[in-house]
């Protein structure tokens, strides 16, 4: 079948492009991870050029493994990704099921709902951390201030005032602190990616078997058991796909972390690499290799999960 040859060859440009895109930078990263390579050094100017004579063996890897930030960064990366996945899938399924039936203004609600997905990640982060979550000037600060003012007013009341004076003053939370910055990142990314989950689930719900549902109603099935035994299994594949695509994007989350934490807060792996790369390229590259390994471990799990159903 010689007429099969050309069609098959059509994938070569894409394959070659991605191969070069992967291998050349990865090869260079691998090389940098084994040498001493810094951008500025007064004491060792010879380390500022990437030459083989600066060979350091596994020294960079040792340095990274010993740095206290490394394990924390891995923990954080996983915590952030898992929380976002969990929240977006739950919210996505609930919202998709909610808006799947026709109701007045369905089109407008749909437009409102999916808008966050189009917002630039950098804008998303700037908007949330400054204008919404800021403890003084943001909506959070304004809301907390308003509640406290109201409580002050209530305390002045006769009779009931005594009851309200037992209530504490509320204090706003700073989302730039180490403990809370991951929460801020999870909030903003969930806001942005829930619409994506809703889009995919909605598309899938449109192909749900209505006859099956009618039969279930005739058999006396309630809304919950219909959701549990018909809708949820129907959403299995789309859930797997949403999880996989989001994992790909969120493992390399960078702009949000950078804008929220500015280095004081929680770091994830890409951010730690960026921090090392300000001067120590060797250490940054070694961390990069660790990140590649982590990504591949996650990828194997995810791709198994989705890949099985892909070729059916």
């Amino acid at each position, binding site marked *: 079948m010689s007429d099969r040859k050309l069609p098959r060859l059509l994938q070569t*440009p894409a394959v070659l492009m991605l191969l070069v895109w992967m291998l050349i930078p990865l090869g260079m990263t691998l090389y940098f991870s084994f040498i001493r390579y810094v951008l500025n050094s007064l004491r060792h100017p010879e380390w500022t050029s990437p030459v083989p004579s600066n060979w350091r063996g596994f020294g960079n890897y040792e340095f990274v493994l010993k740095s206290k930030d490394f394990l924390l960064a891995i923990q954080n990366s996983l915590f952030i990704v898992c929380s976002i996945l969990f929240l977006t899938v739950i919210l996505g399924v609930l919202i998709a099921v909610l808006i799947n039936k026709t109701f007045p203004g369905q089109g407008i609600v749909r437009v409102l709902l999916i808008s966050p997905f189009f*917002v630039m990640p950098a804008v998303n982060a700037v908007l949330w951390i400054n204008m919404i979550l800021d403890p003084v000037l943001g909506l959070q600060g304004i809301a907390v201030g308003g509640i406290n003012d109201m409580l002050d007013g209530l305390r002045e009341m006769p009779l009931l005032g005594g009851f309200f004076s037992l209530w504490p003053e509320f204090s706003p939370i700073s989302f730039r602190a180490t403990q809370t910055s991951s929460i801020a990142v999870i909030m903003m990314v969930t806001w942005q990616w829930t619409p994506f989950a809703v889009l995919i689930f909605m598309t899938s719900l449109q192909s749900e078997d209505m006859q099956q549902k009618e039969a279930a109603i005739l058999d006396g099935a309630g809304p919950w058991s219909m959701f549990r035994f018909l809708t949820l299994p129907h959403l299995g594949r789309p859930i797997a796909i949403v999880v996989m695509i989001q994992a790909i994007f969120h493992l390399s989350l960078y702009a949000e972390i950078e804008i929220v934490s500015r280095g004081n807060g929680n770091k994830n792996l890409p951010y730690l690499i960026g921090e090392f790369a300000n001067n120590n390229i060797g250490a940054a590259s070694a961390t990069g290799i660790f990140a590649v390994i982590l990504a591949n471990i996650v990828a194997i799990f995810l791709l198994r999960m989705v890949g099985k159903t892909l070729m059916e």
Partner: protein
Amino acid sequence: MAIVAQTSRFGTYGRPTLAWVIGLLFFFPIFYMVLTSFKTDADAVKPEFLFFFTPTLENYTNMTANYDYWHFARNSVITAVSATAFTLFVGIPAAYAMAFNPTRRTKDILMWMLSTKMLPAAAVLYPMIFLAKGIGLYDTHILIITVLCLINLPIAIWMLFTYFKEIPKDIIEAGKMDGVSTFGEIKEILVPLAWGGIAATALLVFIFCWNEAYWTVRLTTLDAATLSKLIEGNRAPEGLFFGRLSAVSTAAVGPIVVLGWFCQKQLVQGLTFGAVK
């Protein structure tokens, strides 16, 4: 259908109300950003002017006067449009080959392509800058277009592949009988048939290109800098410039959000990733 459309109290009142509340909640941050962009920097941080204030266009006029918004917007359009076109140009033939002439390794190739997306950008940033400067492409449109194409190609091929796979092979084969060439087959038969999926793919890729902020910020200085670079440069000290910040942000995300609104139907229908059987 009549049976499914049972009316319950939740169905008539609860569902629409809840749906509207959630929709408005999700949209609120964007609304608040647009609203703030019409306040002066001083008014923007005063609680008493939260919703009622004297609107001003000052932030927008300052923006075009101070930072040459149009330069960045032009670059965003050029790079995102070209990168989307380039991605489809490479991606459609590849997805065609995989969907209609699969081999034993097709699945592995597809999975490998997706796994290249998992390569952390931060890990390869330095080598990339090194290479870009070495071949003299740093801060050029060509470089940004190529990079945007490469980072979106895996997702695009996957989307197209899952869409193409649903098309009956016989229809494509029929073209072969009539003596149509392979490229003719793609152009005359496949593209019209899979138009919905191709449009949705193009939209998604375009959105990702427009919003990309890692490479576009780090591989440019000014000439090829896009709107994400403009945002990066305006991330001013907290709180002081809410009005200005909102105006720049609104101008940067406005075009893409409006485009998304107009094309939401295509997205809803085409964004299946093979999840619909």
